[in-house]
């Protein structure tokens, strides 16, 4: 099990955004999370990547605890040093790419492996070029993010996340900020990663993509997982009324 989240609760003030969510992701699995906006799916991802702290629940990465719950029911995070080690197990691709604008494409990719993981320079650069090739961007290594299209930027962001050799890669609506004609190139890259058995969790509004690529689809609404399972079942024969309604609205 790469990721295990049990009984996650999270509130912003009086608004409870995640109501007792549990989710497991196996190695090589591609999980898509769909649902209306405000359903809590992005928050779930941000909690999994420690960008938000959870109120209660447990999070494990490759069976190592990151968050546990004490007797009072409150979430307890492991020590910072331990948590930093666990951060290297996952990567996150943002909706807004969040590339470092003052770094070239190549530097965006190699900087963290070099200065956070302190890996040897030759190896890191060789791998980075390999990744760029995989993203069809090997000739843009020296360019700056502002010189790239949104789709190209997002592919650099994926390469940057992959350079850290994560066990699991999270995508937070990776194509939502892109012009429609540019979403294809990004989805193609994710599809290719799926073929390579990369473990991924993708929050997305691209239903055909979720149906085609993922092993499992999770439908969330109002902070709970309403329905999950094989994409053909969830999309083809949804059991829950809310799922049906959502998919119906979506097709219109």
């Amino acid at each position, binding site marked *: 099990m790469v990721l295990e989240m049990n009984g996650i609760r999270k509130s912003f003030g009086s608004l409870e955004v995640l109501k007792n969510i549990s989710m497991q992701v196996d190695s090589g699995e591609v999980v898509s999370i769909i649902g209306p906006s405000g359903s809590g799916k992005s928050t779930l991802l941000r909690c999994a*990547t*420690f*960008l938000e702290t959870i109120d209660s629940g447990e999070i494990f990465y490759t069976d190592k605890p990151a968050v546990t719950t004490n007797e009072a029911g409150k979430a307890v995070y492991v020590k910072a040093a331990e948590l*930093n080690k666990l*951060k*290297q197990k*996952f*990567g*996150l691709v*943002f909706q*807004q790419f*969040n*590339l*470092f*604008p*003052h770094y070239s494409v190549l530097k965006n990719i190699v*900087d*963290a492996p070099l*200065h*956070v*993981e302190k890996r040897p320079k030759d190896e890191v650069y060789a791998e980075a070029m390999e990744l760029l090739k995989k993203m069809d961007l090997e000739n843009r290594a020296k360019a*700056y*993010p*502002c010189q790239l299209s949104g789709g190209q930027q997002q592919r650099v962001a994926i390469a*940057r*996340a992959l350079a*850290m050799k994560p066990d699991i890669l999270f995508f937070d609506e990776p194509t939502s900020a892109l012009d429609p004609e540019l979403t294809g190139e990004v989805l193609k890259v994710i599809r290719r990663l799926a073929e390579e058995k990369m473990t991924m969790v993708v929050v997305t509004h691209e239903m055909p993509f979720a149906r085609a690529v993922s092993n499992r689809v999770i439908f969330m609404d109002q902070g709970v997982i309403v329905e999950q399972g094989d994409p053909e079942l969830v999309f083809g024969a949804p059991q829950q009324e809310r799922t049906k309604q959502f998919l119906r609205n979506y097709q219109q």
Partner: protein
Amino acid sequence: MSLYTMLSTMADGMLKTCAIFFLTVLFSMPLGMIVMLLRRSKIKPVQWIVKIYIAVMRGTPLMLQLLAWYFGPYYLFGWSIRGYRFTAIILGFTMNYAAYFAEIYRGGIESIPNGQYEAAEVLGYSKIQTFFKIILPQVIKTILPSVTNEVITLVKDTSLAFALAYSEVFALAKQIAASQTSFTPYVVAGVFYFIANYVVAFVMERIEKAFNYYK
């Protein structure tokens, strides 16, 4: 008074003006950084104190502040202020400009999207790495135009040192103008300030260009 004597007399004042300028820049820019960090401190009382400090520095005339820095030690503590004139001037300018720079820095830092912090955090950068490698270079780029403005204002503000009768170029111009009943020293001072600011603008433009490789 020949033009040569006037220029050589005023050259001394120009050196003094430059001394005020460079020392103020040297001290106030890093101090502004500290003030900005304190301003963003999570400890409320520290925040308040810094807020009051900034409000006073920006809300009162610099000339008054210079007088306060120079005479304050005597009137408050009875200390001798002999030989303290130049120190007081540098203190006054530094503390005033640090407040302005702090606010410029703060504006710069707050303009950096949260996503940059989050991306750095997910990639495992430490807080210090995030600040110096990711945030600061971007902040510097955004604040450069405001810093240029502030530095040019400083060049002209150095003339306020006349309040403490420090014979920088403008005080000298006034003195020579009085004794020669002539506007020439003012023209000389004007040309000096103009050239000084031209140099400042030129240097800052170069720095801005150096940061122009990205948007």
